[in-house]
């Protein structure tokens, strides 16, 4: 997942020099990779092994529990590894109903974006915002419950603020930020 993201990013950045890829096109391309990898891990690994075949559990404390990392953790670890590469762009998984409070919307664009994709998941949200001294192109995409594992884990988690998620429903949003020149 991390390699494909880094590859997509490098292609996007290098082609921007010659083919004038817009911020929106780049964000959409990055999101396509993220969403696909995330869906594959959730369905093929976590849901299959935990919920269907009951071979191994997924746990927030996967190292201590000798379990699978949660899909949200896989996503975060990838974003953190990308952040270490200092490629400029960043991404995160946020929600109006976060289990971990740190994943709640913080900026005005995040709040507006998460509300927008919760109402209309098919339509991504785009906005320019300034954080610190840098101006960013910020895109927010709906993150939906793609398997029963998403629904059962979130609804049953001790810290969840929402216990009635349904399959296919928007649970949060992927936020991608690209620094603008």
């Amino acid at each position, binding site marked *: 997942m991390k390699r494909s993201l880094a590859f997509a990013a490098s292609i996007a950045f290098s082609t921007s020099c010659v083919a004038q890829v817009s911020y929106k096109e780049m964000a959409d391309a990055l999101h396509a990779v993220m969403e696909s990898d995330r869906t594959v891990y959730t369905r093929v690994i976590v849901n299959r092994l935990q919920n269907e075949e009951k071979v191994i559990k997924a746990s927030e404390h996967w*190292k201590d529990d000798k379990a699978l990392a949660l899909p949200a953790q896989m996503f975060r670890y990838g974003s953190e590894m990308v952040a270490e590469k200092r490629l400029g762009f960043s991404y995160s998984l946020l929600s109006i109903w976060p289990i971990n409070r740190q994943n709640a919307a913080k900026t005005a664009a995040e709040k507006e974006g998460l509300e927008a994709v919760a109402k209309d998941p098919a339509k991504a949200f785009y906005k320019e915002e300034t*954080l610190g001294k840098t101006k*960013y192109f910020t895109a927010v995409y709906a993150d939906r419950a793609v398997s029963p594992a998403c629904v059962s884990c979130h609804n049953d988690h001790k810290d969840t603020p929402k216990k009635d998620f349904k399959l296919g429903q928007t649970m949060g949003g992927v936020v991608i930020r690209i620094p603008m020149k």
Partner: protein
Amino acid sequence: LSVAIGGYLATALLVKDAADDPLLAPARAMLLPGKTTHGHHQIELACEGCHATPFAGKQGLQSACESCHGAQLKAADDTHPLRKFTDPRNAERLEKLDATLCVTCHVEHRPGITLAMGVTQPGDFCFQCHAEVAKDRPSHAGMRFDTCNSAGCHKYHDNRALYEDFLAKHLDDPPLLSAPRLRLRTTKKPREMREAHARIERPTESACRECHEQEAKGFLAGKHGMRLAAGLSAMTPGQARLAMRKDAAHEALGCVSCHTAPEFDTRKAAVEACLGCHADEHSLAFERSGHHALWKKELAGELPAGSGVSCASCHMPRIEHRDEDLGTRRTLVQHNQSETLEPSEKMIRPVCLNCHGLGFSLDALAKRRVESLDMVRQRFIDRERKTP
């Protein structure tokens, strides 16, 4: 005269081996801008160890910090890693406290403002980002922000033995487990070891390293070997800030200082060797402790291996070493004391929990009753009340 003094100081600053030169070392000491922390005092004259690149600024220092401490922080699942703060959504927080740099909180040579763990921020710095903690944790309402870091509560970097779900798993631990037993080393057969050691003509560090690479790595990263790792002469007890025996003051520390040839007896290395140098209150009290009584019984064959507790059991514990390249797991002795030294909660998982429950361990290390487990228990009770 001024030119001569200036020349002397400049020479001391620029000559590579000045830190170990009897003529130039005093000049380097004069150039220190302030007393160093206990973590760095052994290598304080090796200026280039931290200030490797002139005019590289804070980023240059950051590279030096990470080269020694980076791997340890990663292994500790650092709660506040660099990558958390490079996220643009934390830009506002960074303006208050630039947590991307170690030196924001750990400035060297500033004894007047240095707190425990070499922290040079005011003791309530957690407030900068966690001012609203009581909203999510009502139990924390009214707590002062200079108590976040209290023993048994939260640590900025390493919370492996302190996170809520871990505490929850250990709510009902007894003070002493039913089968208290420390990990045993993965060793070769005694005869093979005797033969291998007998083949060594001169037990030098490099000879030891041929078979004990991981142990040597730990030794060089720890307080006994860090001077050697920095290219300086070996540490001697006389250079220590802790109280040491005067008759051991000039003992240069290497592998054979504790693992004396030709026996290389690890039992001697685990207590006798320590007390051959260390003479501080904690070390001197060991022989009056229950841990030592168990150790004596183990040596006498009255208790099985792993029942006794030596100095090394806690300060150089046996830990699992995973070699990802070879796909192997072995139990080796961690020769880097810092891995379990400070903050003391680092000792809980690799050491204390082999024999004791978490609550007992937290209280013992904090030397007071720690409320963390009670707070977690209460949080679960409150949550169940709210759940229909």
